[in-house]
């Protein structure tokens, strides 16, 4: 009996939460998680991620080629060195790019792609859960997208790209090779890297590995893992020989997860939904009484 009542109350609570527009969800519950044979991915009890060691990257762009081949995009010409002249952004037909930066310690190559945030702004922005954070870590896009581009507007790293000028445009961005992960394989870029600049594993292990390298070779790295705390933590983690602003990273994003900027507003929604009608009905009742009085007075 007691259990029955508890179940009933739970159901009631969930029902009320649903009725009041469901906006009382906390950010870590945002984005439907979808598991697809999670047992096949080792260590996927927590988010999977990639550690990028920029001291090891030589700018061979093998990752760009592997990415293009894995996702049926035009394969970039890696002989062409001119692409390094100005920093590039991932595009709608190229999910990852390698950029070259001149720093105080010489040339540093940095691979750029979706950061796969722990609490992604893009997924919180999406009103149909087309963009979502999977349980395993990748932030992936789905066909039920309506193309509103709120994810692009919100992403602190400006990663999602839109296929303008098509009748059925898609949002294009790195999906951490979600389709390969489901088969138990590593992301294509990680597998292709000849210098082992990219390491794939659980986020916790990647942070440990990063710390091991930073402490193991003093002077070789700055003591900071980009993505450990930025915007609430990201799936891609970077270590660098120079301060991160020298290699094109935004360093003013803060450590608050972006969806949390909207929770204050969302929390207020159920209150307004309940209090406003009550308040307005009350005022209406009061003015009605007054009007009646006035009319009665008028007829006498």
């Amino acid at each position, binding site marked *: 009996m007691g259990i029955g009542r508890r179940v009933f109350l739970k159901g009631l609570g969930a029902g009320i939460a649903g009725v009041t527009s469901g906006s009382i*969800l906390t950010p870590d519950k945002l984005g439907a998680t979808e598991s697809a044979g999670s047992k096949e991915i080792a260590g996927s009890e927590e988010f999977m991620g990639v550690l990028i060691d920029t001291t090891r990257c030589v700018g061979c762009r093998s990752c760009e080629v592997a990415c293009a081949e894995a996702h049926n995009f035009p394969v970039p010409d890696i002989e062409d060195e001119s692409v390094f002249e100005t920093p590039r952004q991932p595009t709608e037909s190229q999910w990852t790019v390698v950029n070259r930066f001149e720093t105080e310690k010489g040339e540093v190559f940095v691979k750029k792609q979706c950061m796969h945030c722990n609490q992604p702004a893009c997924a919180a922005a999406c*009103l149909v*859960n087309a963009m979502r954070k999977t349980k395993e870590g990748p932030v992936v896009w789905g066909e039920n997208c309506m193309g509103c581009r709120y994810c692009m507007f919100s992403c602190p790293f400006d990663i999602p790209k839109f296929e303008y000028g098509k009748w*059925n445009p898609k949002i294009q961005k790195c999906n951490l090779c979600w389709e390969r992960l489901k088969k138990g394989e590593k992301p294509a870029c990680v597998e292709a890297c000849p210098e082992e600049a990219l390491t794939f594993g659980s986020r916790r292990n990647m942070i440990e590995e990063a710390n091991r390298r930073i402490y193991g070779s003093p002077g070789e790295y700055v003591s900071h893992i980009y993505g450990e705390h930025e915007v609430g933590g990201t799936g891609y983690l970077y270590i660098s020989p120079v301060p991160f602003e020298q290699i094109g990273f935004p360093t003013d994003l803060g450590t608050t997860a972006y969806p949390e900027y909207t929770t204050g507003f969302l929390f207020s929604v159920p209150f307004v939904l309940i209090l406003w009608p009550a308040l*307005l009905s009350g005022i*209406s009742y009061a003015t009605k009484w007054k009007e009646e009085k006035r*009319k009665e007075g008028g007829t006498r």
Partner: protein
Amino acid sequence: MKGKAAAVEIKNFKEFVAFILSELKPKGKLLTPFNVISAPIMLLGAVLMVIHLTGFAEVTHLSQEFPWGIWIGFNVMVGVAFAGGAYVLTFVVYVLRSEKYHPIIRATVLNGFLAYVFYAGALALDVGRPWNMVNVLVGNSFGVGSILFLVAWHFLLYMVAEFIEISPAFAEWLGWKRVRKFLCTLTLGAVIFGITLSTLHQSGLGALFMMAKGKIHPLWYSEYVPILFLVSSIFAGISLVIFEGSISHRVFKDKLSYEYRTSYKDMMVGLGKICAGAMFVYFFLKLVLLIHGGHWSLLNTPMGYWYLIEVVGLVAIPCFLFLQGARYKNLTLIRVATVLAMLGIVINRLNYSVIAYKWWIPFSQRYVPSLGEIVIALTFVFINIWAFRWIAMRMPIFEAPPAWAVEEDEREEEDFAFEPKLGVTMADGGKKMVERER
């Protein structure tokens, strides 16, 4: 003064069709300056829409850097702010029961309803995969944590609420007496529901920008954007009511009810006062946020000057003009203030979505709307005006309701007034007791 003497009596479906067909014919002059300008633009807009939707050619200047253009920044953001007049005035007329503004309530609600319909249309054109918009309403993949999800639902529900509010006019047009009686009973509920929804989605539109932290200039970005949007929607909406009133006053001259004509000036002055009050609160909020944000030094930059133009030139000054206009009952002053305030809203909403967004990007790489985008944006505005005119020419929007409707309302009121005196039921007896105690 009572309106049309006899209502059209529609007995069967055949007559209904005949009536609708006869009403579809244009009324009034066809070759007016407004028609001559707007018709070609609308035609061109329709062609461009087809080109855009089929992906035949790129109509917009949107880019990966600037995903939102004027269809969002102007049509949706500004359009919804301007439509705010409906929730403010329904509050004043139906909740506070101020009879003074009754003559303009239908025009305002109709305008609000049409604005939502056509600017939701602009939204449908803007999104890349409009057939998936239905996913917001059906299916099992709701993004309940998304501000946009909330805004989308509220848009839709609010459209329904506004339609219920304006529906008695439709029933009067069709001569549906019993339907009208039923619809009138829904009005107060729809109004209360509508005000609640408006509070949430007017501020929700501001909350959309919360996650663009770092991308919107710090003079504009703050945690209080939702409140700023809500407060500014009050004077944006009322400004549009004054603006629309100034035009309707001339265009629908022979349609205006006696009450409308006699109280027109009083109403405009009163609305000016509301605007002045709301703008003062808004200006004060802006000032507090500026001080709290500690952004004084930013004022002496190009974006700072732009900010000052908006906040001083298009908020503080019109606020003062509204105050003076209301004080000296000067309609010209109020109209000047209205235009300035409306311009301020257009610039404010565009700042959030386009101008102060990624302000560091040089002008040559910035989003500037294409001619096609502007034509389509104007097309939506013109369709709105055409639809408004079509309805206002045929239904009792400005003119008094037909005689049968007025009689019915009076009968209702009498019943209502006599009710406590009959004192038959317990409830009425109780009421009497309470009244005696008072």
